[in-house]
């Protein structure tokens, strides 16, 4: 299988801050790859170097064998990038924006059928003649995705496509991105959500302080136990009595009428925990479970595994 994205020895320094410290990465054609890392880890910088928005100090990146600097035309024809920020051109309607973007890539009116298809697939049909300014955030996000796909790029890069997006749209975007992947596109995705990376990505790289600190198949990484971490906040109807040691050891935050617990599923489950609390005289009114931030767990795991 050939290489869709090849990243070799990429270094980038902004003023005195070393944003990327020699990144090496190969993503195979047809792969669904996740790039994770906390804010400021260098994810967007790496993606920007791929798309030509930023220049590396040294090293090179090739898209399907085309260097992004020396052979930028071919590289960019093969790459579609969905930026993280909701940028848009306020002068144009959705259809105009898509036709213009296609034109930049040298495509004429013959791509109109494909644009219609994209509009349909991204549920923008009733907004085609609406000015970009008048769209909601979610709609703008969909237009950004359509813009990135307008030239049918075999390699698609999505920079946190579901950040700040409601649950319904997030799910529909997942379905759409999965479909792209099934159709043979190579997908590179950055995300903060465990659920997203778990359900979509075949392999994951974690970037921290400009370095890749973990790179493996998602299942392998999850098998290391990181997928068993849970966090829940329990609300009580009245102040709970003093709790036993095995429960207080799980508490990360405590208020008069609530506690937040972090636990490992292999040790204790939520029903067992609730049973124990009931036995100790607690009256639980409500439970709120929280999405665990994947890279926090990974980085935590990495740090714990350090000699």
């Amino acid at each position, binding site marked *: 299988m050939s290489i869709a994205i090849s990243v070799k020895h990429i270094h980038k320094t*902004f003023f005195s801050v070393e944003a990327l410290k020699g990144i090496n990465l190969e993503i195979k054609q047809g792969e669904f790859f996740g790039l994770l890392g906390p804010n400021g880890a260098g994810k967007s*910088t790496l993606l*920007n170097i791929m*798309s*030509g*928005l*930023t*220049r590396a100090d040294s090293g090179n990146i090739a898209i399907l064998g085309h260097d992004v600097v020396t052979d*930028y*035309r*071919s590289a*960019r*024809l093969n*790459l579609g*990038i969905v*930026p993280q*920020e909701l*940028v*848009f*051109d*306020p*002068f*144009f309607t959705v259809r*105009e924006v898509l036709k*213009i*973007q296609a*034109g*930049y*890539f*040298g*495509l*004429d009116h013959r791509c109109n059928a494909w644009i219609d298809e994209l509009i349909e697939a991204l549920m923008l049909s009733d907004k085609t003649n609406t000015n970009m300014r008048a769209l909601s955030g979610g709609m703008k996000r969909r237009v950004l995705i359509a*813009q990135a796909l307008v030239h049918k790029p075999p390699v698609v890069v999505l920079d946190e496509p579901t950040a700040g997006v409601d649950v319904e749209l997030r799910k529909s975007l997942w379905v759409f991105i999965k479909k792209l992947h099934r159709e043979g596109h190579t997908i590179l995705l950055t995300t903060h959500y465990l659920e997203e990376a778990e359900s979509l990505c075949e392999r994951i790289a974690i970037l921290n302080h400009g370095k890749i600190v973990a790179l493996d198949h998602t299942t392998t990484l999850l098998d290391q136990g990181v997928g068993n971490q849970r966090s829940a906040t329990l609300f009580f109807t009245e102040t709970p009595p003093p709790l036993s040691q095995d429960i207080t050891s799980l508490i990360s935050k405590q208020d008069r009428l609530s506690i937040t617990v972090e636990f490992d599923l292999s040790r204790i489950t939520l029903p067992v925990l609730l049973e124990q609390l009931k036995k100790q005289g607690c009256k639980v009114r409500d439970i709120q479970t929280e999405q665990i931030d994947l890279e926090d767990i990974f980085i935590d795991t990495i740090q714990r595994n350090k000699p």
Partner: protein
Amino acid sequence: MNWLGFRTLFIKETMRFTKVYLQTLFAPMITALLYLLIFAQVLEGRMDVLGDFSYTAFLIPGLVMMAVIQNSFANSSSSLIQSKVTGNLIFVMVTPLSYLEIYLAFTLAAVLRGILVGLSVYIVALFFVQLPLFNIFYIIIFVLMSSAVLGTLGVIAGIWAEKFDQLAGFTNFIIMPLSFLSGVFYSIHSLPPLWQTLSHFNPFFYMIDGFRYGFFGTSDVNPLFSLGVVATFLVGLASFTLYLLHSGYKIRD
């Protein structure tokens, strides 16, 4: 050459100003006509101008060229700064368009706006006064080259400015004074010697003087010399702009 990409960017830049034609085409035309009405009314017969032509006739080519200068500059500069501030410049930067194609598309759209405003000022002005036409070649070549110089300056200013007030500074402290002091409203022969000399260092003076020659067949300096000055500016500024785009200055990290 990505012809279709270049053409698309040119059309997009053109649509950008035609969609707001009241602001980009009509307003500057009205401004130029107000100058014409006021200055012609106040100064007719009181100004020493070239040859035997009326002051109003003398004024019109100057106003047309000033409209061309200001609007060509405004087009490329405002488009770039808006794209930079709103972030949508990335839609162009991630495409297979080359620096040359990007430069040409922005500049040619600026040329088109300059010509449209200039032409509308000219046509409306004809209702007020008869204007001779000495040599249309000079008229066309000076309009094309001057608007290209200003479109290029607009690209430079748009790349350089990070905020709207920086661009406003460029417009108000460089473009406006140079265009007002270029001989739009007077022949530099009527100026004191020092100001005459200083005027020769103003590139806009050559644009207006050469353009006027196309109408009257007479000018302050040899029109071929003016053509040479404007052409030199165009080549120099275009090379500098391509260098800026290539270096990624303020548009690529």
